[in-house]
């Protein structure tokens, strides 16, 4: 089993990890070093933007990945696809929680209340509810195959409302007018200069981090799957039907079976 024992990592893998760690550390420090934005109520907290903005982007990408893997599972019945779907949706939920948490802090800092009943806040909370519902559905079944199939169906059914809540609802004219939350900041070029550079760095690094976490989770899930598939090899011995036979019987008058001919092991073929 692979471990994180550094002595077993190749030089290249170690270098990548070190580089990533350095880049993340630098970006964190950099995010504290960018100038404050004067139009914010608490200008120093404007920097939460760097860590808030990547989260919903990655959460929605992971939702799409989870839906895709779910569809692939339904096509192939391959539990490895289910493992990938779970990994994507678990991580997506974590990133959604981080979106909510950072958004709540920002809401308090900028608008004076932890929860503004802002349509954007509420719509993302509903996306989180969809994630929760997925896991509630999974938890309701014991059988692995049934659990995987039904939750895959739900993940596909959830794509439409989730996409509506993330990509359509916030951009409806009446919602844009009523919401305090800015929309389209990146696409409209509102973020410029050092903020744009820092944001690019954080989006890139958080994306790489999410890919790494996804791969770790998939690996853990596949190991768990191997354990699941091996269960029963030990316990099936007593229940194995390997020596079942089809024993022809003579039909007699009511009162009982005459007895079987050719009793004993056969190759399982039933012959009259």
């Amino acid at each position, binding site marked *: 089993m692979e471990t994180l024992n550094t002595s077993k990592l190749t030089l290249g893998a170690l270098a990548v990890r070190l580089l990533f760690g350095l880049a993340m550390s630098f970006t964190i420090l950099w995010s504290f070093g960018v100038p404050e934005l004067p139009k914010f109520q608490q200008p120093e907290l404007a920097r939460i933007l760097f860590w808030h903005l990547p989260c919903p982007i990655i959460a929605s990408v992971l939702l799409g990945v989870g839906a895709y893997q779910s569809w692939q599972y339904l096509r192939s019945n391959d539990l490895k696809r289910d493992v990938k779907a779970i990994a994507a949706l678990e991580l997506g939920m974590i990133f959604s929680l981080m979106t909510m948490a950072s958004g709540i802090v920002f809401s308090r800092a900028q608008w004076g209340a932890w929860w503004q009943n802002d349509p954007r806040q509420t719509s993302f909370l509903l996306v989180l509810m969809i994630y929760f519902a997925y896991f509630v559905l999974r938890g309701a079944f014991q059988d692995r195959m049934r659990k995987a199939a039904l939750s895959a169906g739900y993940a596909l059914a959830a794509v439409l409302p989730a996409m509506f809540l993330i990509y359509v609802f916030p951009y409806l004219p009446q919602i844009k007018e009523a919401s305090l939350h800015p929309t389209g900041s990146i696409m409209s070029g509102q973020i410029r200069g050092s903020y744009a550079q820092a944001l690019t760095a954080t989006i890139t690094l958080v994306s790489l981090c999410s890919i790494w976490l996804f791969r770790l989770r998939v690996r853990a899930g596949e190991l768990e799957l191997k354990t699941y598939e091996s269960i029963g090899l030990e*316990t099936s011995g007593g*229940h194995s039907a390997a020596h*079942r036979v089809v024993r*022809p*019987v003579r039909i007699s008058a009511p009162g009982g*079976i005459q007895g079987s001919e050719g009793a004993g092991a056969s190759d*399982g073929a*039933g012959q009259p």
Partner: protein
Amino acid sequence: MLRGENLGKRFTDRWIFRHLTFDLAEGQVLAVVGPNGCGKSTLLGIVAGLLQPTEGALHVDAAAFGYAALAGELYADLTVGEHLEFTADMRCCEPRTDELLALVGLSGAKSAPARTLSSGMRARLKLAIAVQERPALLILDEPGAGLDRQGSAVLATVIEHQREHGAVLLATNDPEEMNLATHEFDFS
């Protein structure tokens, strides 16, 4: 007509059965016998397409099949006749309502809601539904439970008719039903 090769079924971490191989040809009645919980109904469910096996292969040469199970229920609010019309519509075949009700001895109960039927009458109605489409393969899961002597005679007639143009896969622990079999598959 029906061959199962190395079939296995698992629920959570428990194997119900594994490495199951059997054969059923036209004109045969294969009785699957064994103690409660050994997997008879599970096997019949797999053959009927209600369950997916965890492993193995199923080879089928039957254009249509009929399925009747002790555990299966009927629509409480539909009448006997409406049941047969409904299943005929779902199968897109002739309902043959009067003919089937005469076969199973329920002609007098055509307008009776299923909730008013006794367990024996329900068993007969399930039998009628199973043979409605003149299936090549008849799958019966403890069909005789609750049947009286007359009902048992009906079951024997149905199975005998079925042998003339197809085969029967029968799960049972009833000695009388086992007498109707040409072959036996013992789970125990």
